[in-house]
């Protein structure tokens, strides 16, 4: 009996962390699912602000599951038709003016995507938080605070990500990215929740890099529909990437 209690005492902490990690996992999964559904079709406005210039891009974005995503710029006119295809961990850009598909090399993954403060990596990896990170969670009355630390085998530049989620409604509030020295590098905040087809979700994603003064990128969801029958694997083919439109 005594031995059993001892064993139980040893075991208990693990069960609680395990179950907590599972809860955190399901919460984050739900957050990720929020913007994606099984498939999604969105119209997005991206505003890039730097000390030197402001730029507004309008684009469409489609996704299917976790692995496939496709973006195409509608305006400004100069960039119209420039497209990005993401398949698993790979990315390609298509430039209609020169009729060329260019694969984003691994070395460019941390580079800016279309001149914004989002990196190519954000597009590729953002959807794999759950698999690549250890999760631990604390909660208070209004918020869940999930801390993500990378697993040993995960290739990432982040030492830690703090993910804050409000409980009611259950929506993402912010993500803070820290480097390996524990210094906060950038913050992604989720603003102005809006209903899209009856589904409440933040309509603005604002990325602020803290190491670059005056830089900021806002992604505004103008419209988004989920579980669109027209989006199939064909949408994410090289042929579609190269199609003139």
């Amino acid at each position, binding site marked *: 009996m005594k031995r059993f209690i001892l064993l139980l005492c040893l075991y208990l902490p693990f069960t609680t962390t395990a179950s907590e990690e599972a809860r955190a996992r399901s919460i984050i999964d739900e957050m990720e699912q929020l913007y994606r559904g099984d498939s999604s079709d969105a119209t997005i406005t991206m505003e*890039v602000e*730097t000390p*030197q*210039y402001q*730029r507004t891009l309008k684009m469409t974005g489609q996704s299917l599951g976790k692995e496939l995503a496709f973006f195409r710029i509608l305006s400004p006119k*100069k*960039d119209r038709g*420039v497209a990005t295809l993401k398949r698993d961990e790979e990315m390609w*850009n298509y*430039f209609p*003016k*020169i009729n*060329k598909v*260019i694969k984003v090399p691994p070395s460019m993954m941390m580079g*800016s995507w*279309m*001149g*914004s403060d989002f990196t190519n990596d954000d597009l590729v990896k953002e959807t794999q938080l759950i698999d690549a990170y250890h999760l631990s969670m604390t909660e208070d009355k209004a918020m869940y605070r999930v801390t993500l630390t990378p697993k040993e085998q995960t290739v990432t530049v982040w030492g830690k990500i703090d993910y804050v989620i409000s409980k009611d409604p259950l929506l993402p509030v912010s993500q803070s990215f820290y480097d390996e020295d524990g210094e906060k590098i950038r913050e992604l905040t989720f603003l102005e929740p809006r209903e899209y087809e009856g589904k409440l979700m933040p309509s603005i994603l604002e990325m602020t890099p803290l190491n670059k003064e005056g830089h900021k990128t806002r992604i505004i969801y103008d419209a988004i529909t989920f579980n669109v029958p027209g989006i199939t694997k064909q949408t994410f083919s090289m042929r579609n990437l190269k199609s003139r439109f």
Partner: protein
Amino acid sequence: MLTLRIAFRNILRQKRRSLLTGLSMTGGYMLFVFAYSLLEGSYGNIIDIFTLDNTGHIQVHKEDYLDKPKIYKSVQDRATVESTLSDHPKVKSFTPRVFSPALAYGTDKTAPSRVIGVDTETEPTVSRLREKVSEGNYFSTAPDADGYYEAMIGHGLATSLKIGVADEIVLISQGADGSIANDIFVVAAIIGNRTSFDRMAVYLPLATAQEFLAMGGDVHEYAMLIDHRDNSRRVADELAGFLPDLTVSPWEEVQATFYRTMQSDRQGNNFMMGLIVFIVFIGVLNTVLMSVLERTREFGVLRAIGARPASLIRLITLETSILATISVLLGMVLIAPMVYWLSQVGFLVPEPIDMGGIEFQHMKGEFSLQVFLTPMMFMLVTAILISIPPGIRAARILPKEAMGAH
């Protein structure tokens, strides 16, 4: 006046000795001037090579573009800059440029390259771009029948992309507004050879490059030529006064590494020339000492009738200076035509020096006042210095002992 007369008499007393001493000084001076002229000339040559080939004598940039180039550090108020430059009497010509790194695609190859946007009209007045066209024709600002603009590419880029004149080249770069610049151009000419500094460059007409990089009307650089390369610092300072918001850099700053190397090289050469003068003057010292020794009796008499030690030192210094001045003047007359020939024709180099696609066949000297005056001053000062020890020796002579000497 009396001292001067005595000095002349003494020089003329030993005509042969004075002549030989004088000739050794003349020879030393000529050697000095010749080496100095050749050295300054070859520096001048190298400086001309890169200032006239590319950098110009003075450049104007925004902030610290020269050290840390960023696409948005651009000159926006071009009208002010251009009117300032055209109003300055020493500025002969100037031209605007834009730069950006880019990825270049041939048919199936890729290479890193550098986009240089230049004004097709004014660029040839500052750099040798037009002369460096090795294949094809100098580009124009007009698009071809298919609407593609012309580009001129460096020899190295043409080789690595395996493209030639009339082929297409695709460029991808980052625009000033954060967009991805991408466009197709048609190769109008190949520039330079494989040693040119711009072997990996893509030259575009200015307006085309500005549109490609989404820069509006802005430029990154103004390069200019002025009346003479040696005035670069002074003119740069004057221009900086008119253009307080911009950075004005003379070529000494643009090519700082070269300039520092040149300065230290020059120091080494000055030491060598000092050595020539030193050897010449050991002989001169010998002569002066001898003439003092053989005149011990004479100095003794002078002292006895009341000449002061200081006036004896002055006498000997004067003798040497007169001899040195005559020698140097003679040397100047003899060497001047030669230096002139050196500056105009120069030595034929057995193998032409190739500098970025332009060949130099002659090693030329410099013909300027400085080339003659610097060695002259050096010789005269050394002559005075070297005659002081014998002078002191003469001043210390005691009349009593001197009278007994032979």
